[in-house]
């Protein structure tokens, strides 16, 4: 008796995604180092935007200062490269002035959580409809590798030659505690999952924060003895994280010390611009 024939595998027709539709080709190549995860995140962001259905004119991408903050220059939307730490404040002005725009903020962990920490928590508190993508590489790359607010304790940086003694921030915990109504984490390694997560963040009404772990092989990697960019991705992104969907099925020792991936928090809370229109403007006009 011959074995039953294996069910025919459904053939997936893959149409290559046309990134050029959203890129400014004459502004490339980008400044990012070989092995940097930012390009992978950028591509996931573009696929997520494409899926969201917003037109290029409806999208506004705002950034601060740092490696990740160079993103707006490469993408064909309304784009604003602002001051170190202040991207969320500029973005708040744009969004409140023109709520019909879909405003996406691209920021790094130093930009968002150190110099921009105050703006970060208050943006979350207001729950204004901004999508905040935090490129977390645990280092200040643009200035040459100083320790950042997410650098793990004991890690080397050019300003922590004896190992960092500061407890790192968890951007997701901060966002959640501050009131963001959508909080998620992804990595450059899990690129398809990241695309889905960013898409969900874009479609969410309210402040949506996605903490994206991606590696800086040039500084963090070299200083902390990672063998290669791919080695870093495997250790920090693949093995260093656990999907929220699996966390209950795993023994505690496999979860210990790892970052959770996926949507970590979501609630339906009134959005700031809508509240402004329905509560403040309506009351003011009636008075």
């Amino acid at each position, binding site marked *: 008796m011959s074995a039953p024939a294996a069910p025919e595998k459904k053939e997936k027709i893959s149409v290559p995604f046309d990134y050029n539709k959203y890129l400014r080709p004459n502004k490339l190549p980008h400044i990012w180092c070989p092995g940097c995860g930012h390009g992978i995140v950028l591509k996931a962001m573009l696929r997520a935007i494409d899926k969201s259905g917003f037109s290029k004119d409806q999208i506004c991408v705002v950034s601060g200062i740092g490696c990740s903050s160079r993103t707006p220059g490469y993408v064909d939307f309304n784009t604003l*490269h602002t001051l170190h730490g202040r991207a969320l404040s500029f973005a708040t002005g744009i969004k409140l002035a023109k709520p019909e725009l879909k405003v996406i903020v691209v920021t790094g962990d130093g930009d968002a959580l150190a110099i921009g920490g105050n703006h970060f928590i208050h943006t979350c508190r207001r729950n204004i409809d901004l999508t905040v993508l935090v490129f977390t590489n645990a280092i200040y790359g643009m200035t040459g590798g100083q320790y950042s607010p997410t650098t793990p304790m004991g890690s080397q940086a050019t300003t922590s030659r004896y190992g960092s003694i500061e407890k790192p921030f968890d951007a997701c915990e901060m966002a959640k505690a501050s009131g963001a109504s959508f909080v998620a984490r992804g990595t450059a390694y899990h690129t398809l999952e990241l695309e889905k997560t960013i898409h969900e963040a874009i479609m969410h009404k309210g402040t949506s924060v996605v903490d994206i772990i991606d590696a800086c092989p040039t500084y963090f990697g070299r200083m902390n003895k990672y063998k290669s960019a791919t080695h870093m991705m495997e250790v920090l992104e693949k093995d260093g994280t656990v999907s929220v969907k699996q966390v209950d099925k795993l023994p505690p020792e496999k979860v210990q010390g790892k970052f959770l991936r996926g949507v970590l928090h979501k609630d339906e809370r009134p959005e700031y611009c809508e509240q402004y229109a329905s509560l403040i403007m309506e009351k003011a006009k009636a008075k």
Partner: protein
Amino acid sequence: MAEKKKKLLQGNEACVEGALYAGCRFYAGYPITPSTEIAEGMSVRLPKLGGKFIQMEDEIASMAAIIGASLAGLKTLTATSGPGFSLKQEAIGYACLAEIPCVVINVMRGGPSTGYPTGPSQADIMQAKWGTHGDHPAISVTPAYVQEILTETVRAFNLAEKYRTPVVVLYDEIVGHMREPITMPAPGEIEVVDRAKVTCKPEEYFPYDDKYEVAPLAPFGTGYRFHVTGLNHKQDGFPTNDPKIIRENNERIMRKIENHKEDIWKNEETFLDDAEVAVFTIGSTARSARYAVNEARKAGIKAGLLRPLTIWPFPDRAVAELAKKVKAIIVPELNLGQMVLEVERCSRGATKVEGIHRVDGEPITPAQILEVIRKYK
């Protein structure tokens, strides 16, 4: 003709009226004495007009938010005082380089640091010019009367739109908190400059088009997709390291003000035709000076007053011409010597320049000024 509407208003309230008259529809701010009444007024009035008010988490965020909202196409305002003005400097520089119109009110209080929050000062004059890093253009207007706070706030918005640059309205706490009867301007009575419309095709649009000295600025979300950065940039808005373009752009943002000083300057001259001694000052100190000059005239002393309503760009020509005609220029100011340095510079030794300075939180009195005028009779 219908009788004009009169109101008894505080200086800061007149500022709100002026901003709304000019078409301001976005305010972001942070509470600070002695400017808070402006935020309070805007929070009540803006939503009635479909405008937006937001109290940000700090002064830096407020300045950044008004730049963002201006890029979205609205006329935008923030108001502050000394410590807040210091914090806003970073983003003011951004607006200078990225050429984003917006208006900043600085109701001057005693400094340095927290200083004397409820006392008047005129010690931010140099900061209004040199506060942010790097060479940058500066326009500052200096009203002295409640009515003038209204009209000068309108003028500040006009200059901001016309020259695509932040404009600072500087007045001291005395003028900000003083109440005076004012006449409300009818719609159309004062000129209001709106942002130049962009008419070209999106693919032909450059936010810093070098065909223009001041290129029109398209609002975000109107089909003109472009890039704005605080880095030195080319006419298309993208960063550049090209020394020639960097130099040209840095010089152009200065030149766009420098070449149009005649349009930006505004001076009030009192008894200057035959004056032998002149007073040069702004704000509440100019009110004391006017009284002193009148008293001097009654006493037969040929005194006059040059009162600039634009302090930056500095009225260099008016001062240089005055210096050739008078025995002395007296510069009373509520600081330890800021405008006086500019007056000395512009006089080029043609006359004697004497400052009167006060930093104890009290106003300079007419008697103090008159005493110095008498020295030069």
